[in-house]
């Protein structure tokens, strides 16, 4: 089984190489076969591997495969070496399985695009890089994958590069994630200095002996790693790139900016859980950042009118839940939420893509409406996704994962009532904007005609994903119901169990409150947006400034513009003519001016020269007389 590991990232890589080298000459069906086929093969290998893993767990809880040694410098020895343990298995399953569905969808979605091969080349490269990221057994290889997915994200956001705003969005995503990447890199340097190794297992084994809990070093390192994760996962204050990243095609948003890449930060923190456990301060910061992000992004989602931006903000918000879970030490709950979120958010994006395609690239939800009758399958699948997003009790995957996070945000040792209240408020807002989205898009009067029915190949992935959006939660039930804990049993082979508070109230109570809050959110959304009310509500003048504030994502872009861009521009404007060079220019100009002054004396008049000589003689003789 170990030998299969390398094939998982290798197939997408082969696909990338073929498509990028010969893509222009190949006919579209071949491109589609290669592009989607390689990822499908990877998915099949992953499933084979996963079945084998579950049936006969390998020794040490992980498959290893050493491919070759990358480089050796002094003590540092970096191998291209893959490792699949329980945590990685969840991630590669999502990456390849959801990735394969999205690729199949894309073969139809992108059919009319001129750059068919380039799209699939980038997508395959992304899958390969993402697989490297999660399968790496050392942090340098992980960083390679980390940068690789950043590059692919950039390439795919700017896929339609003829539109300048798309290029700006791509640049913005690249630059802002770069802040996080730099922090991560510095964190890796510090780790290597402290521990002398970058092997993940080595770090996790040595860290408890090397660091004392809460010492400055470990806090600094974990905070740097956390900033790296925040950049990739679009957490506050580095979240501003993700809504703009929706400039890319819908499958890209589904794969990269919902299901996989943006959860790389979650993976990093979960993977480095041994370090984070040594630094309670950082854990608390992670939890607070998650809680704040989920509220801020949720509120922003309420005011958006672009269907993809609503989903983007909801993605930020859901990743905020994952960070919150990580922060309170609910590792398996965070990964479980990632697992369910990947299905329903990919579903929502793909369905949104179908809707947008069918309505002549109309993004504004208030220009849609009445799609329930006209696109029934899309409606049903979208409903499944939205239900999971708003965590409809018992019939959606989102309920099980989000309920676990809500429960742990109170009951875990690191949790407290404020985090729980914030998470609860987030749940309410999530239900509210999900309902708003559903009602505005699928109910009401049709405002834009549907010009073509979606291709059958696009519908099948939607149905598969919808199925998982409903059922994926059933592998992990709350402790008070059925007590079925397949997922956390699996993940806890790698991740530690959540430490709970000593005295706990009844879990039933919390579930009831959570369900009630979700119901309230849905009801409020129903009263506000059903029928004509939605338009009235959207146009009420009293809330215009609030809506504007939320619409712009809490003015974070303007804030950064004010804090960073303006002072920088100010400095550059000061330095436009090079302050330091001005000194040298001054010297040059001064000597030039002196030269001009003195060259007046060189006027060609012989008699004046002689007078000069005479004056010199007079000066010397006078000097002799006086002294």
């Amino acid at each position, binding site marked *: 089984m170990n030998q299969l590991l390398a094939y998982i990232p290798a197939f997408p890589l082969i696909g990338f190489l073929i498509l990028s080298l010969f893509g222009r000459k190949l006919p579209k069906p071949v491109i589609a076969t290669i592009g989607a086929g390689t990822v499908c093969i990877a998915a099949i290998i992953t499933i084979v591997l996963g079945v084998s893993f579950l049936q006969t767990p390998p020794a040490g809880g992980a498959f290893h495969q050493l491919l070759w040694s990358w480089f050796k410098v002094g003590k540092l020895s970096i191998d291209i070496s893959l490792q699949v343990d329980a945590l990685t298995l969840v991630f590669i399953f999502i990456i390849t399985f959801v990735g394969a569905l999205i690729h199949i969808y894309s073969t139809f979605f992108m059919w009319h695009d001129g750059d068919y091969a380039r799209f699939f080349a980038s997508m395959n490269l992304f899958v390969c890089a993402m697989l490297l990221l999660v399968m790496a057994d050392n942090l340098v290889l992980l960083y390679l994958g980390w940068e690789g997915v950043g590059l692919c994200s950039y390439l795919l956001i700017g896929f339609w590069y003829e539109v300048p705003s798309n290029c700006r969005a791509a640049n913005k995503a690249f630059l802002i994630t770069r802040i996080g990447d730099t922090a991560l890199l510095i964190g890796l340097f510090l780790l290597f200095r402290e521990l002398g190794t970058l092997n993940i297992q080595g770090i996790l084994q040595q860290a408890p002996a090397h660091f004392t809990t809460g010492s400055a070093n470990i806090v600094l390192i974990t905070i740097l790693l956390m900033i790296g994760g925040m950049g990739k996962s679009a957490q506050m204050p580095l979240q501003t790139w993700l809504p703009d990243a929706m400039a890319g095609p819908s499958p890209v948003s589904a794969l990269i900016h919902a299901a996989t890449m943006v959860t790389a930060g979650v993976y990093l923190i979960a993977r480095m859980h041994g370090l984070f456990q040594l630094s309670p301060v950082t854990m608390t910061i992670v939890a607070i950042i998650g809680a704040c992000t989920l509220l801020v992004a949720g509120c922003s989602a309420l005011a958006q009118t672009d269907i993809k931006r609503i989903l983007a903000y909801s993605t930020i918000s859901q990743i905020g839940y994952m960070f919150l879970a990580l922060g309170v030490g609910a590792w398996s709950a965070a990964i479980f939420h990632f697992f369910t979120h990947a299905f329903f958010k990919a579903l929502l994006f793909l369905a949104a893509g179908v809707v947008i395609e069918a309505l002549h690239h109309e993004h504004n939800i208030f220009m849609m409406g009445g799609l329930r009758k006209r696109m029934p399958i899309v409606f049903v699948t979208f409903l499944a996704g939205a239900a999971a997003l708003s965590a409809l009790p018992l019939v959606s995957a989102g309920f099980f994962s989000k309920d676990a996070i809500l429960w742990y945000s109170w009951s875990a040792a690191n949790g407290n009532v404020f985090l729980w209240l914030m998470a609860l408020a987030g749940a309410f807002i999530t239900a509210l904007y999900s309902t708003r989205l559903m009602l505005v898009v699928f109910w009401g009067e049709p405002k834009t005609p549907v010009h073509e029915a979606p291709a059958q190949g696009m519908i099948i992935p939607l149905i598969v994903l919808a199925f998982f959006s409903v059922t994926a939660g059933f592998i992990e039930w709350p402790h008070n119901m059925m007590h079925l804990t397949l997922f956390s049993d699996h993940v806890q082979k790698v991740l530690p169990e959540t430490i709970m508070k000593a005295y706990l109230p009844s879990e039933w109570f919390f579930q009831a409150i959570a369900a009630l809050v979700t119901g309230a959110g849905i009801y409020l959304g129903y009263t506000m947006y059903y029928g004509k009310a939605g338009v009235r509500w959207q146009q009420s003048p009293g809330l215009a400034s609030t809506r504007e504030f939320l619409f712009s994502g809490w003015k974070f872009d303007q804030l950064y513009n004010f804090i960073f861009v303006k002072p920088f521009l100010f400095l550059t404007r000061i330095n436009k003519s090079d302050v330091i060079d001005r000194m040298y220019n001054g010297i040059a100009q001064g000597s030039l001016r002196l030269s001009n002054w003195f060259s007046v004396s060189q006027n060609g008049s012989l*008699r004046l020269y002689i*007078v000069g000589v*005479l*004056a010199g*003689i*007079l000066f010397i*003789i*006078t000097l*002799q*007389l006086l002294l």
Partner: protein
Amino acid sequence: MSTLFYISSIVAVASTVMVITRYHPVHALLYLAVSFLSVGMIFLSLGAPFVAALEIIVYAGAIIVLFIFVVMMLNLGRETAQQEKEWLQPKVWVVPSILVLILLVEMIILLFSDNKDIMRISVVDPRKVALSLYGEYIIAVELTGFLLMAGIVGAAHIGKHKRSSLHRFLQNGENGNGKAHTGVPPEQVSNEQTVLHD
């Protein structure tokens, strides 16, 4: 001897003053000859007859003759005198004269300030001069020979009328003055010049 010296000194200074104040070049040159002759008399009074003879032969003879040749060649006559008259305005000569007078006063003060002992003058006969000249100064004599040779060659070269090879910096001014290079067929002008002036 002393009387001779004073008389010849007065003549020398007076004729020199006349030299620098004359407008007509030939008049100035005649006064210059008088000045040289009286300086020769001073040499004689100092007991340097050989030098006095040379002064008269070379200065009053050769150099003055050279000047007169040039004056004749350039035909410097009445117009030149008229021009000199226009040029020699007080505003032209007052300031330089004051400066030179200051210099003169300072030098005389220096001359009479340092030592008060009497400077006796004795005769140095030509024999000692000849021995010294061809003894310790022999290399300087050789060099003087080179200098005279260079002077002759230089004068011959510069004085030759070759309008064709006017320096390229001067040609623009020349064209501006409207002076034609009649002796120069265009094909003889070198490429460089052609390029520069196209």
